[in-house]
């Protein structure tokens, strides 16, 4: 059995056609789902790698229309589950309802807008219900239990679990704290997408039992940035390596903090 993996890509990065080819490479490499980030110039939860990639995507003429076109193609051609991620001002400027409606009509599996949160969502959650498209709340290690309870009480289909403090792009150490956090969440009958800083097969393996799917993002941006060889092929190989059979590595028992940090 291979690990379930959701791969993150930035729409229009490095350009429109390449971002579609990257999606195809992710599919060939064995990804289960793709998270397409619509770039915003001031992404408050992202680190320097994704920030820079978003800047390039914007400079190369990203528009929300192009973003939807890309997602439509990815859904139709790869047949994978696709999620759209962006920051509040992008859907807000489009008109939240129009954004949600169009997302739903394309047949994506959910929307992740990290800075539109329960009670500060500008009506997003209600629109998700209206157009039957999952709105995916983000939960972190520092989210208070009360808040987690409030989020779970609206019965989301998925939650996005952030496994490290801070911004994207730094390495994540998989600690017992992470595992307990994920165990508790997955017992709630919600599909847990877990990410931030995942960059090795070992990490995917150690998280897999507690997740619906692992999410890897910055590791791909870094791979795209490298200037050697055939980038599309490298992406496919990287995806395949992250997705490999769980039984090929032995579990290290309870002590997950010993798993290595490759992303440096």
């Amino acid at each position, binding site marked *: 059995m291979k690990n379930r993996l959701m791969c993150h890509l930035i729409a229009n990065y490095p350009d429109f056609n390449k971002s579609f080819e990257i999606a195809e490479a992710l599919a060939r490499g064995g990804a289960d789902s793709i998270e397409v980030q619509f770039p*915003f*110039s*001031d992404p*408050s*939860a992202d*680190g*320097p790698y994704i*920030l820079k990639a978003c*800047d390039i995507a*914007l400079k190369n003429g*990203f*528009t*929300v229309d192009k973003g939807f076109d890309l997602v439509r193609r990815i859904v139709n051609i790869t047949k994978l589950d696709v999620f759209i991620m962006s*920051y*509040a*001002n*992008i*859907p*807000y*400027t*489009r008109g939240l309802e129009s954004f949600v409606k169009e997302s739903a009509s394309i047949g994506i599996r959910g929307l992740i807008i*990290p*800075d*539109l*949160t329960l*009670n*500060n969502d500008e009506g997003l959650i209600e629109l998700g219900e209206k157009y039957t498209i999952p709105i995916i*709340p*983000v*939960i*972190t*290690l*520092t*989210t*208070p239990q009360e*808040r987690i309870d409030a989020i779970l009480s609206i019965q989301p289909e998925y939650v996005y679990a*952030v496994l490290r*403090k*801070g*911004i994207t792009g730094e390495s994540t150490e998989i600690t017992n704290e992470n595992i307990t956090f994920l165990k508790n969440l997955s017992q709630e009958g919600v599909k847990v997408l877990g990410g931030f800083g995942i960059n090795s097969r070992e990490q995917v393996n150690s998280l897999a039992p507690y997740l619906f799917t692992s999410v890897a993002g910055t590791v791909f941006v870094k791979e795209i940035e490298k200037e050697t060889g055939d980038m599309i092929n490298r992406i496919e190989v990287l995806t395949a390596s992250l997705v490999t059979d769980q039984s090929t590595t032995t579990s290290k028992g309870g002590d997950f903090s010993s798993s290595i940090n490759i992303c440096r």
Partner: protein
Amino acid sequence: MSTMVKTPNKEGYFGEYGGSFLPPDLQPVMDEITKTYNEIRNSPGFQEELTALYQDYVGRPSPIFYAKNLSKKMGGAQIYLKREDLNHTGAHKINHCLGEVLLAKKMGKKKVIAETGAGQHGVALATAAALLGLECDIYMGEVDIAKEHPNVIRMKILGAKVVPVKSGLKTLKEAVDEAFGAYVQDPVTQFYAIGSVVGPHPFPMMVRDFQTIVGIEAKEQFSKSPGGLPDNLVACVGGGSNALGLFTAFMDDESVKMYGAEPSGKSFKKGEHAATMTLGKPGIIHGFKCYLLQDDEGNPDPVYSVASGLDYPGVGPEHSYLKDIERVEYTTVNDKEAIDAFFELSREEGIIPALESAHAVAYALKLAAELPKDKTILMNLSGRGDKDIDFIAEKYGEEYGIL
């Protein structure tokens, strides 16, 4: 502090603006700041400590000065200056920095961090941090570092670390982005002391509250004059802290008209101004909703002003609300008008204003010329211009006969 504590609501909204749009790991930290602030804002201990610092350290109350020469020259309304430029560190920013650093200290934080544009907020924060024994990191765009050199040196002398920001236009917006990024890394030991009435709840409310002392004093000082109340208030608006500082105490006095001057830079072309309220539309940036200069896709526009403290694509949520309900009128002043006013105030009254404040001076002069002699204008002279003199000499020296 009685009447103006009407807004925001519990969630931090001023009408539809404000709120808190943050990645989820920051929200618990913001909630804790709100909770602590609400606990201590009216506690006698905190108020006494702050009041004592305002008096003995900042030199409050700052005087109101009647600008007789300028008023005479304009031939219309009488112009009065609230002298925030005389504060320790040379601007109004020290008012909220002392409040923020006191709060950070009460919360057990080790370090305060912030963005700065003109360097005034950075200097004020570094000062308050030095006084109260906290570490201080200031994020500043490289363009502003070059332009505001004296303030960079001051921050360093005060023991702060100045972190150069190299992304994008290398000015205020990017400095906020990077300070935000650093904050998210460690919101537990650090405190992000935002430099204006912007950002997520509770900052627009809290920074305003710390600045209201300006208007409270001014109202008291003005009450001794014949009319009792000024007819007009004028302030420049970047994020909007000095403007709300002056306006808030007069909010319920219907006879008092209020004007906010935004920078229209070189022109109204995209990228050449920062006239947020004049040309922006509602959007969400840096954790709050406000009028925002942005493109059709929702990405903030590049902005510019000759005054480094005014070139921000957003504006305080309370200002956005005050615009909609038409309590405050927002107007624009361009670079040329601001520079003219900078020299006008220097040469007529012997007061060199900050380039930011020069925008308020320019509008006050315009307004004075239009009004009869028996009307009064009280403007917030938010800061002094020492920090700007090298830049002025280099850019405008020949034109104004300095070089």
